[in-house]
């Protein structure tokens, strides 16, 4: 039992969303506790990106509401930053300009924003690539540029749409460990979309399992025991293995 009363950074209340005849989200409600990482786990096409974009204020919901720190979302805001699944980097801009772009749009002076960008470029391990263009970077490096850009604007809530889908398995594991470090040190709320069960259980304080379209939350799972353990031993933890199995069992029926 969780006895501490955790505040919600983001609350989704009875959200509906249709794309024409396609019913993407139906009556979806979900809370995202402050300072924690919540994964949205579900098969492709189940509406994870749609939900994240509604929270970001990039898409309007048909009905229902989204609250960020208790205030209803009406559009994008400085309290949220987005990491895009397809990176969304400007091909004509160098790494440093891409990373600093969020601050550039907020009118931060060049020297100041580049100092901040430099810090996050180092944090994601891209030092030395400041002046490279996106086409000169690998998929994983581009993803890190997108992550550094989101971190640079110092938003309380980070919305990450399958941020590790474009990287190979080794890099992915490295990223997952780094993410655990970020959650501990940055005091931010992370909304993390993935379709990997292992990844969700490995990085999350809370895993929300979404059912295929129209998407609702079928189950919320909160790993407890191993969250404070050493990152290397998590994958061997009995609770970790049990949870992976349990989630697979409940998702299996939807995978043909």
């Amino acid at each position, binding site marked *: 039992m969780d006895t501490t009363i955790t505040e919600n950074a983001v609350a989704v209340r009875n959200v509906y969303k249709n794309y024409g005849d396609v019913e993407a989200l139906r009556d979806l409600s979900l809370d995202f506790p402050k300072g924690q990482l919540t994964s949205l786990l579900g098969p492709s096409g189940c509406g994870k990106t749609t939900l994240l974009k509604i929270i970001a204020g*990039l898409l309007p919901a048909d009905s229902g509401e989204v609250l960020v720190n208790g205030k209803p979302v009406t559009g994008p805001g400085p309290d949220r930053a987005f990491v*895009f699944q397809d990176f*969304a980097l*400007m091909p004509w801009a160098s790494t440093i300009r891409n990373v600093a772009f969020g601050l550039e*749009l907020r009118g931060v002076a060049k020297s100041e924003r580049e100092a901040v960008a430099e810090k996050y470029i180092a944090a994601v391990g891209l030092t030395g690539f400041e002046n490279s263009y*996106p086409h000169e970077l690998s998929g994983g490096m581009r993803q890190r540029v997108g992550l550094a*850009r989101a971190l640079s604007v110092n938003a309380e809530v980070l919305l990450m749409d399958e941020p590790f889908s474009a990287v190979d398995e080794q890099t992915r594991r490295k990223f997952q460990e780094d993410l655990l470090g970020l959650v501990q040190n940055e005091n931010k709320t992370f909304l993390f979309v993935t379709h990997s069960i292992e990844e969700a259980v490995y990085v999350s304080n809370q895993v929300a399992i979404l059912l295929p379209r129209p998407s609702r939350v079928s189950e919320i799972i909160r790993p407890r025991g191993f969250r404070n353990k050493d990152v290397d031993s998590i994958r061997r933890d009995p609770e970790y293995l049990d949870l992976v199995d349990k989630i697979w069992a409940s998702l299996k029926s939807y995978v043909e």
Partner: protein
Amino acid sequence: MFARHRAVILKLCSALLVFGAWEIAGRIPVSFAFPTFIESLAAFWALIVDGTMFTAYVETLRPLVVGVLISAFLGIGIGLWTGLSRAFDWLVSPIFVVMQTAPLAALIPLLVMVYGIGLTSKVFVVCIMAMPVIVLNTAGAVRNTPAALIEMGNAFLGTRRDIILKIILPSASPIIFAGLRLGVSAGFIGAILAELKITPTGVGDIISYSRSIADYPSMYAAIASIIVLAVLFLNLLERLEGFLFMGTRKTLVSD
């Protein structure tokens, strides 16, 4: 050594090939009205020495430069607006599509009736030739800005103005420049056409006058000179583009 100058050497070879073929065709001769390259070169030199060429170009360049400048600025502006607004697109695009396909020769008498035979009519002809491709290319490029980048701009709190200046324009610039190049080439054609069809002035005057007195070498010298000028100008434009968008162009080749 060769590798470094390869582009220049190959371009010279290409020029040599064309001039060689011209010389041979002139010597056969293909037609009594087709001079050799060397005859035309001599005529060109004579036109330069007696100052005819110079005064002719002062005359020809005026509607050309004015028309191309108007087409570039107005064309990119209208194209941008057309690409950004559906309503404006419906209003404006048909006009430029018609302009692009309309038989210009048939429109010239109309223009002369309204604007007389002066500079205005000639500028109009240059604009009619140059503007549609600039407008349509710009509009198309703006509409094709990746939606993901615009969404990114919105997510990071860009204003409409930021998104146009920092995302849409840079993303569209390679295609805008391609349209500009096509527009400028068409503008050159328009400038000569105007001089042949409205009043014979400038280079158009050299062409029609030397034809009327059967001085074919001078006629070909004038025609070739305008082509050379157009090529030089397009090269210049390409350099400007390379200078302005160093990072972008590389990217678009590989992505």
